């Protein structure tokens, strides 16, 4: 952190009060995660937190002689039932002020990242997201014209992510849709940052490759059903349906209503639906054989080496197969722990430098590096279909 020798009265009086922070225990470092733990996203974030805890337990809660503390912070509030910007801001500020904290795993929602990023950036604290896919957070030219520099007030990159972004996934989704024989696609999205973002990319790519888009509709994620929309889809004669959105935003209901409304066109969804909860919510019979899911990475059962070990350990520890999100949480924690180990001084600056220098990391998601924007170089995308109530790996996409 920057030292501040130039402070003069009367600021000085106040800052003297500030720097008398209490003595911290030696040889302890703290990792926090900030994910929505109250409300509808709880299902996915629980698997992520499981992954994080597992990564810490695997190193015995100690790295290079330093005890690793972990705190699972909630960025949701009961009134919102979802991520709450005020709580995310508080979490980030709290972490920034806590001298023990050397890494911040989060956020789940890209909107929340927009709030936490500048705060942690000023504090020089590493932030690794296991879930944000909005491209503008890291990539110039993909979001608004002031992005991503608005998230980096210090000018340094402190934000990293282990998931490939929507601009990659939306493209491979459209390519795959065409390959599957789609000629006229109907695009739905949940009107949220993630869902709309990926649907926009899908739409743009589809037009480039000659896949006609008959209509784009933003749904009401809280609606009881989508029968009227399904009637509309049926009337257009679309032969393919793409939904940009998540399980919580009613992907299951859309699948159900498509089938019960007599639409036979296949449905494709992004990785926000790549979880067993999607199949359970939709009912396997409504998905089997006509539902495709894209995912940024390889599914657990296709992983080799470390990924396979991860899967077995996870099952031993938690009694279930890991969901897609668990790997992201695990990987984010692993890469952070690895950087802490490599850092010479165990302070924020050295650990940040070590994370940024991550190259050819042997992780559960394969071997990958962080690029200069903080994005993972892992661009392996996979496509799965739902067969007999299970996600079945179909092929590697986008290579």
């Amino acid at each position, binding site marked *: 952190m920057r030292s501040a020798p130039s402070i003069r009265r009367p600021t000085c009086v106040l800052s003297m009060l500030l720097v008398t922070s209490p003595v911290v225990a030696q040889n302890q470092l703290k990792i926090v995660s900030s994910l929505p733990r109250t409300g509808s996203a709880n299902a996915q974030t629980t698997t992520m937190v499981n992954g994080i805890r597992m990564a810490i337990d695997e190193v015995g809660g100690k790295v290079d002689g330093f005890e690793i503390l972990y705190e699972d912070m909630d960025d949701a509030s009961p009134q919102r039932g979802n991520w709450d910007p005020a709580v995310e801001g508080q979490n980030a500020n709290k972490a920034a002020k806590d001298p023990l904290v050397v890494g911040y795993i989060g956020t789940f929602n890209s909107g929340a990242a927009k709030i936490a990023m500048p705060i942690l950036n000023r504090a020089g604290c590493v932030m690794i997201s296991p879930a944000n896919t909005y491209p503008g957070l890291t990539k110039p030219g993909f979001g608004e014209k002031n992005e991503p520099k608005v998230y980096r007030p210090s000018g340094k990159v402190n934000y990293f992510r282990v998931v490939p972004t929507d601009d990659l996934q939306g493209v491979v989704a459209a390519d795959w849709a065409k390959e599957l024989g789609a000629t006229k696609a109907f695009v739905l999205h949940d009107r949220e940052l993630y869902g709309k973002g990926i649907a926009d990319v899908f739409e743009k790519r589809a037009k480039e490759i000659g896949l006609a888009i008959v209509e784009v509709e933003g749904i009401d994620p809280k609606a*009881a059903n989508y*029968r009227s929309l399904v009637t*509309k889809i049926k009337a257009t*004669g679309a032969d393919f349906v793409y939904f940009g959105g998540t399980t919580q935003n009613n992907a299951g209901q859309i699948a*159900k209503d498509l089938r019960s409304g*007599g639409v036979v066109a296949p449905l494709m969804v992004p990785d926000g639906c790549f979880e067993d909860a999607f199949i*359970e919510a939709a*009912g396997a019979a409504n998905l089997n054989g006509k539902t495709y899911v894209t995912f940024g990475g390889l599914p657990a059962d296709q992983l080799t080496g470390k990924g396979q070990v991860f899967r077995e350990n996870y099952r031993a520890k938690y009694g279930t197969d890991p969901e897609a999100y668990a790997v992201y949480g695990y990987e984010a924690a692993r890469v952070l722990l690895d950087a802490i180990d490599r850092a010479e001084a165990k302070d924020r600056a050295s650990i940040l430098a070590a994370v940024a220098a991550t190259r050819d990391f042997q992780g559960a998601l394969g071997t990958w590096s962080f690029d200069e924007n903080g994005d993972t170089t892992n661009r392996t995308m996979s496509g799965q279909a739902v067969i007999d109530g299970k996600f079945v790996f179909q092929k590697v996409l986008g290579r």
Partner: protein
Amino acid sequence: MEFTSAEVFAQQVLNGLSNGMIIALIALGYTMVYGIIELINWAHGDLFMLGGFLALTILGALGLEEASGPMAVVAVLVILAASAGFCGTLNVLADRIAYRPLRRAPKVSLLVTAIGVSFIFVNLGLFWGGVPMEVFSGGIAAAAPKDFPALVPSRNLLGTDDGVGFTLRDLLVVVVTLPLMLGLWWLVARTRLGKAMRATAQNPTAARLMGIDVDRVIGSTFFLGGALAGFASVVYALYNNTIGFQMGYRAGMDAFTAAVLGGIGSLPGAVLGGLLIGLIRAMSDQYLEARWTNALVFAILILILVFRPSGLLGMKQREKV
């Protein structure tokens, strides 16, 4: 596309009416309680949600998820009765424990209590989804939406796959909802209890002076309103095949809107309001854009209230003193 524009319109009317009838059923319970103690029962939607969880639990416990034919009919009847009884009882309990001590308190304090009860119900729903049962997928993902068995198939009763679809499920909505509405109308208009309810709604003090046990009448109203929510939850679950712990929010909002649109406290008004909302939603999804549907519903509501300040079928306002 064999689907002609006339067929599309007919189909959307059907979609709208089916959804509207379910909304109406929830709105009835809402408006009854409002009529009698002027409580905007914010927990009503979440009570409805718990009814859905009970129904799913019963199906799981009795192994009736896959029931078909006559067994399915039995299963539907069982969960209808159970959810209605459960929600009715729970509503009465909520009244006894939370609302009754506040009868003399300001109306808004009662509203805040109802909001509190609603949060408690939501949490119970979240926990319920975490119960390790097969129907809740072992309870691993408590917060995730739950699949509700398709006991009533979506078979088209009009024959073909291509034309307008009036399915067995749409029929179910009509078969359950219409008799309930008629029965409720009969109960309120023709029975002694109904008379006592109307008297209490009009003037509780006078009703008490006339020898009506006001607390019992209020209790019965809560039971009936809750039971309607229970029935509605089963119809909803069988129609949509999904339940989730947060589904009460939208259901409650729709029901509140329907009740106000029709004229708060008016039973036919609640039905009319529900049907209108269903139709507006369907038409907006088809002919406008789905993303504007919700805003349109409320814009129409505000417009109607500007021109009919007591709702469509609401009584002229009694001047309060």
